[in-house]
Structures are given as C-alpha cells and as structure tokens.
C-alpha cells in the first residue's frame, strides 16, 4: 500500500462541516487510527483489510515522502533515506541518544544546535517531531479518504512512561500535521477503555503493554464508569525492538562480516523480526540474509530465541513487581490482566505474565489495535459527551534541583492530575538577587540521574540575607500530563512563569518556522483557527446574555432591551460572515451594551440575598447519583 502525501489544497475537499475526531495510536513500529460513534469503535483499514500503518517514513532525494508499508519495503533498498522507530527519539536529547548509540540505525547530526536530536536523511536534517508529523499526516489522510470527512481533531496515545518532553514533542508533531489534540491519553488506559472494563468490570486491573519500543505497566481501579489509574511504571526504551536487536546481533555474528554496514544491520533486523514472529507459532525456523551477493543461512530454535528474549522479559516483570509494591498491592488482588502490543504475542511473555499474576491474561481484542480503539472511544466521549470518566496520574515524580545537586520532589509520581503543588525555597547567599530554577523529572535522588526538563532564572529578588527570601515554586500538571512551573518571591511578589518546553524540545520559534515551512497555507490555517475560536467565544457570550434576559428581562426598559437585542443580532451576523476583527468588535459591543444590565442584575441578586432568598442551590451533593 502506498500512502501519498497530498499538498494542501490538492486533496479533493470533503464537506467542510463534516469534521470528525479520531483516535490515533502513534506507535513505534505501527500506527493505527480508529473512529468511534456512540460508543462503538471501528479501526480504519486499507484496501487489504490491514489496520496497521507501519511507522516508517521514506524520504527521496526528489523531495517526495512516502509513509507506511511501501516505506517499510524501501527500508532495504534505500536504507539511508528511510526512518523507522522514530518514537524512541521523541523528546530525547543528544545525551540520551549517545547511550543508544549503535542500537539505532540512524545517522545523527552531531553539529545540531540546542539539545534536540536531528537526523540526517536523504540530505535533509530532520527532527523526530517532523518525522512523526509526517506519519501523522499520512494517518490523517488515510482516515479522511476512508471516512470522506475532514479529520481535524484527535486523541493521541502516548506510553504512560513518556516524560514531559516526549509528550510535548508528540503534541507538537500533531500540531504540525494539522491535528488538534483533544487529549493525550496513556496507552494502557486507552487499552482498558477498549476492553469496556468500565461498564462490566469493577475492581483492580493491570495492563501489560509491550510495544515495539516501550514498555508500560499500569494498575487501574474500575468503579462504575470511572477509570482511576492507581500506579504506573515502565521503561521508555524497552520493547520488542530489543528482541529483534538481540536476534539480529546473533545473525550478524554468524555472518562474521569484518565490518557491518548500516544496510546490513537493517537487513538483519528485518530478518530478525520475521524470525521473532515465526517463532511465536513454530518451534524452530531457518532464514537467509543476502547482501552484496553474499548469502548466509541462520537457524534458530524456540528455546534459543527464548534464552535471547528472557533478560528483556524479566526486566518487564521486575518493573511490574516494582509498581505493585509501590501501590502496596499483592499480585493476587488483580482481577484481570490486559495484554497490549504486538510483542505480547511472544509465548514467553504470556507465560511470564501469567506466572506473575497467577492467571491467564486477557487478549481477545487484537493487541495491535486495542490502543487505537480505546483512543477513538475517548475522542467520541470528549466530543459527543459520555458517562465514563478517566482519572489519570503523573507517571514520574517532578522536582527541582537544590544545593548539592539533590532533587527536591514537588509532585510525587502517581499523583492524580490535573494537579498543582507548591514548595518554598530560599536563597543561600547574602544579597543573592537571582535564582536558577532547574526542573527535573524522575525517581532518583540526584539531579544527574534524573531527566532535566527546563532551567529558568528568577531575577529581581531584593537583596536580603541568605535564607530570608521566600521563593514559592508552583508546579501545575494539566490533564494531558504537561507541566507548567511558576516561581514567585513571596516577600516582594516578583514572579516568573514558564510553560515547560524541555531544553531539548522545540522552541516556539522553531515550531512557528516548521509550521510555515511544512504547510503552504499555515498562515491561513492559523487565521482560520483564531476566527473559529473568536466565533465560539462570541456565541458563548451571546448565549449567556440570552440566558440572563430570560431571567431578568424586567430590569430593562423597552429601549434598553432593543439596544441589547440589536447588539446580539450584530454578534450573530458577525459570526456568520465577518472576519475575526468584526467578530471581536461585535462581542465587545455586546459587552458594553449589557454593562448596565449586569449591574442591575448584581443589585437585584444582592437585595434578594439580603432578604433571605437563596440565589441558587448551594452545597451540591451527589449522594443520590446511581
């Protein structure tokens, strides 16, 4: 299957008001897109019935971009122009990538400025965000073709263990691809949603998710349609790819080449993947690697494969045990285990998981599609409304660096989000007028063992003796798991706030440039979005005035009323045909026209309150809800 990227404007435009939201599992190896309507989800498939879009992008010298199965096929012919497993580099800095050196078949741009990883592909220099955006564009295009509707919003899934940088990078990639992210949802949580554990099941469930490049384990409590994530853990650099690498290394050793080329590595990896899949069903197999006319034969028994895989599977089991311990939960308390990710087809994985939890895991939904199905259900729930509710937690602790490179945790891991927590710090030198705030993420005690997210300087602290200043640092994490940090000197009120853009992430400027470069109509798109927002806001305020009139119309004279009605009609008209400035002006005019009305309503409310009439019901309770 070939997924061609259309230039904006060249795609046959579907009806503009047929806009839908989808669920996207942006995976390391494959991506899947699904759509849900009234709680029923469907995976979008190609002509051959496959729902898997390989997360592989091929860049040709002539500038064309191909994503999917065709790109994966080109992996062997044109290894230097094809990128796979890019998810492993999302939000990662050069320093992180050095530790992966040799395990990744990419050429890094060593001279890259800023900390962000850049890849050299077919003469271009690309960031993981741009490459992921290319995958998302293809996914979006496939969904639009299949649905004959415009896809402009999506729930995108991320591994629960993704840190702030990787989440931000994922959101940026979606933005570049022209998708508004309704919510980032953790993959295991999406999988649980797909199993509909919300309605039937109550109790404690575990989701074991072994994907191509990431491993996640989550413990969820289900209670009458509310999903509560109790604890989560994992490893953002552990997955089925590691099994492929282990097999490939063995094959390459057997070949005995003096120096291994990048093309040879890719060929060996592709063969290793086939071997892994084959050995999930048969006890042994034989494979051939042909490169530069040199053919080598490789035989692998199931037992040998399992010996190669065991260290990786045991690592996942140890992480599971750690998470259970963290939540003070005994494996026997878990009522069911959901398997996610193609790598859970490996029999060894199933055996080890069954051993740990003392029960056979659930796997009746295709483990490759289950996450996208859950994401689609959540997209439907967010746009159409729903009774189920997802309450998620922070995957990793967030803190700041203090004296001696020690981390002071501000928000511990597994705290329900959204959350805001503050901690006070002080100066350590007399007359110190600035303070470096270094934000880190991770569980370790020392700063250099945690991931550095951002650094900023709070300046303008008045000269005081050491320890006299009171600097209150507030961390806020939103429902997507993204962090904002604010610092404030409480004696004088000097304040600074940063939305944490990780130090190796993209700056706003870079993002703007990319948006410009990648989309001819970026500017128009931005204007369209701003206009849409202005309209929604103007309509909301007109509706609010309408609601107020239906209660308090008697506070106005005939002529006053007609002025307000006229202003409302102007808003209505501006929303129909006006540009952004017109809509904004009409909304402002409406606010001015209703100023006196608002004052009279306040007066009336206060008079009524004084005379003992309650304005509204206070102290709401939900005790009667089913």
């Amino acid at each position, binding site marked *: 299957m070939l997924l061609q990227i259309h230039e904006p404007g060249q795609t046959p435009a579907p009806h503009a008001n047929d806009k839908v939201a989808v669920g996207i599992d942006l995976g390391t190896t494959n991506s899947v897109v699904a759509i849900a309507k009234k709680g029923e989800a469907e995976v979008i498939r190609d002509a051959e019935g496959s729902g898997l879009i390989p997360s592989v992008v091929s860049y040709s010298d002539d500038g064309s971009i191909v994503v999917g199965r065709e790109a994966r096929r080109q992996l062997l012919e044109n290894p230097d122009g094809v990128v796979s497993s890019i998810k492993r580099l999302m939000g990662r800095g050069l320093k992180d990538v050095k530790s992966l050196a040799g395990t990744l078949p990419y050429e890094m741009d060593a001279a890259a400025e800023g900390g962000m990883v850049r890849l050299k592909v077919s003469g271009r220099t690309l960031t993981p965000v741009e490459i992921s955006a290319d995958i998302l564009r293809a996914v979006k295009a496939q969904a639009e073709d299949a649905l004959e509707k415009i896809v402009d919003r999506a729930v995108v899934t991320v591994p629960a263990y993704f840190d702030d940088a990787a989440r931000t990078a994922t959101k940026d990639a979606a933005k570049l691809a022209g998708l508004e992210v*309704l919510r980032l949802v953790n993959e295991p949580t999406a999988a649980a949603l797909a199993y509909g554990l919300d309605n039937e099941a109550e109790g404690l469930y575990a989701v074991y998710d072994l994907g191509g490049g990431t491993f996640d384990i989550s413990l969820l409590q289900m209670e009458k349609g509310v999903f509560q994530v109790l604890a989560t853990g994992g490893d953002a650099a552990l997955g089925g790819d590691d099994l492929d690498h282990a097999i490939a290394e063995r094959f390459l050793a057997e070949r005995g080449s003096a120096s291994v080329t990048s093309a040879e590595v890719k060929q060996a990896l592709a063969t290793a993947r086939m071997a892994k899949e084959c050995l999930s069903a048969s006890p042994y197999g034989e494979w051939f690697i042909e490169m530069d006319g040199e053919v080598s034969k490789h035989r692998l028994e199931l037992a040998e494969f399992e010996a190669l895989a065991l260290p990786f599977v045991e690592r996942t089991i140890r992480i599971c045990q750690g998470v259970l311990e963290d939540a003070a939960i005994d494996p026997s308390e878990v009522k069911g285990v959901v398997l996610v990710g193609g790598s859970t087809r490996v029999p060894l994985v199933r055996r080890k998981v069954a051993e740990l939890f003392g029960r056979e895991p659930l796997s009746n939904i295709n483990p490759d599609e289950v996450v996208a199905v859950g994401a689609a259900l959540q997209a439907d729930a967010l746009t159409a409304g729903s009774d189920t509710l997802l309450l998620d937690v922070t995957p990793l602790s967030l803190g700041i660096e203090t004296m001696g490179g020690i981390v002071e945790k501000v928000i511990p891991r597994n705290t*329900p989000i959204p959350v805001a927590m503050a901690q006070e710090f002080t100066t350590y030198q007399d007359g110190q007028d600035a303070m470096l705030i270094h934000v880190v993420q991770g569980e370790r005690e020392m700063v250099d063992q945690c991931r550095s997210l951002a650094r900023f300087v709070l300046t303008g602290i008045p000269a005081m003796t050491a320890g006299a200043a009171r600097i209150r640092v507030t961390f806020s994490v939103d429902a997507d798991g993204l962090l904002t940090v604010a610092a404030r000197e409480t004696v004088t009120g000097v304040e600074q706030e940063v939305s944490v853009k990780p130090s190796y992430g993209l700056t706003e400027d870079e993002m703007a440039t990319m948006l410009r470069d990648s989309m001819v109509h970026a500017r128009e798109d931005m204007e369209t979005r701003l206009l849409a927002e202005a309209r929604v806001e103007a309509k909301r305020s007109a509706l609010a005035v309408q609601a107020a009139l239906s209660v308090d119309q008697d506070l106005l004279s005939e002529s006053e009323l007609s002025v307000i009605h006229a202003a409302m009609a102007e808003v209505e008209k501006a929303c129909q045909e006006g540009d952004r400035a017109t809509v904004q002006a009409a909304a402002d005019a409406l606010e001015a026209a209703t*100023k006196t009305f608002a004052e009279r309503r*306040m007066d009336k409310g206060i008079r009524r*309150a004084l005379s003992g009439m309650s304005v509204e019901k*206070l102290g709401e309770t939900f*005790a009667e809800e089913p």
Partner: protein
Amino acid sequence: MTDLTKIPEDAPALVPCWSCKGPVSPRALFCSTCGAVQAPGQTDHFARLGLMRGFDLSPDQLQKQYFGFQRRLHPDRFATRTPKERALSQQQATALNEAYEVLKDPLRRAAYLLRLAGRVVNVEESATVSDPVLLMEAMEMREALEEAETAEEVTEIAAKAEADVQACVAAISRAFAADDLEGAGKLTTRLKYLGKLAEEAKARRIRLTRQGI
C-alpha cells in the same frame, strides 16, 4: 457517618459570573443563569466535596462525592469548550484532586482538621519525634521487622502493624469526638509512625512472598 452539608447560616456574598455578569454565589460550580463553569472558590476540603467537616468519613461516600464532582468538572467534560472554560475546569478538577487526596488518607485528614483548628502537626518525612514512648515502640517494631526472616514472621508483624494503625485511627476518631485536640494531635503523630512501619512490613512481606514463587 457523615451528613451532607447544610446551607451555611452566613450566606456568602455574591460575585458576578464571568460569563453573563449576573450574580452567583462564590461557592457555586456553575452559574444558575447561563450555566457557565465558575472558578473554584476558597473553601475547605470538606465543603469542596460536599461533606460535613469531621474526622469520621465513609470511604465509599468520599469516593462517590469525588467521582460525582469530577464527572461534572473534569477537563474532559470541557474538551470542546472555550479556552476560558477549559482553564476554569482544570482549576476545579485540581482543587477536587487536592481535597480528595487529603481527605482519603486518615493521617492527612487528621492533620488537616487539626490545622483548621489552629494546631500544626507535621506529617512530613523530616519531622522529628519527641515522645520517648513512641520512639521506643517504633524502634522495637523496626528491630523485629529487621530480624524477621520467614514470610510467616513478616506476615505476623505486618498484621500487627495494620491492627495498630486501625486502633490508632479509632482512637483519633474518639479524641475528635470528645473535642480533645491535644490528644488527637499526639495520636496523629503516632499514626504517622505506625503507618510507616505498616508500609515497610507490607513491602517486606510482598518481597518475601515473591521470592518464594
């Protein structure tokens, strides 16, 4: 058992709704006229979750109240609304999470009640203990845990620690009921240590049982 909040005698002043500009109670979640979500007002954690202030709390009811409020106020309910409404919903959900986290844990709930009454009990890790009886008890328990070698021994210690925690929670409840804040304060400090021991014992038990697999 907990009663639900009554409308307080001192009816709060009114504030203008940010959306329709009409009067709303500062504690209202939504404007009664235009339906817009409001900012979370200043209130204590109990009132925030529609519960009467007190140490005795049914965990089921606490959860029911928390889920009920989150169902209406969580940002997922506002995903397609204006940025202002999304921001307010996030503030509301944040306040609910904070209230729930404090109230569901007997230790933090007790410390919070004492703080509301003007007494500070430090439940942070670093706080030191001055009560010699408690210090002795904690040391003995910890020694017993360190010396325990078999899963049975550790299970027994874990069960005892858990029973001690329950007994202490019951004692705190009685102290609050008798309006004995001094006693409640001492017991809360005790609960902090017992809780830590119970956790260590449980973690040790899980590790030991696991090795037995």
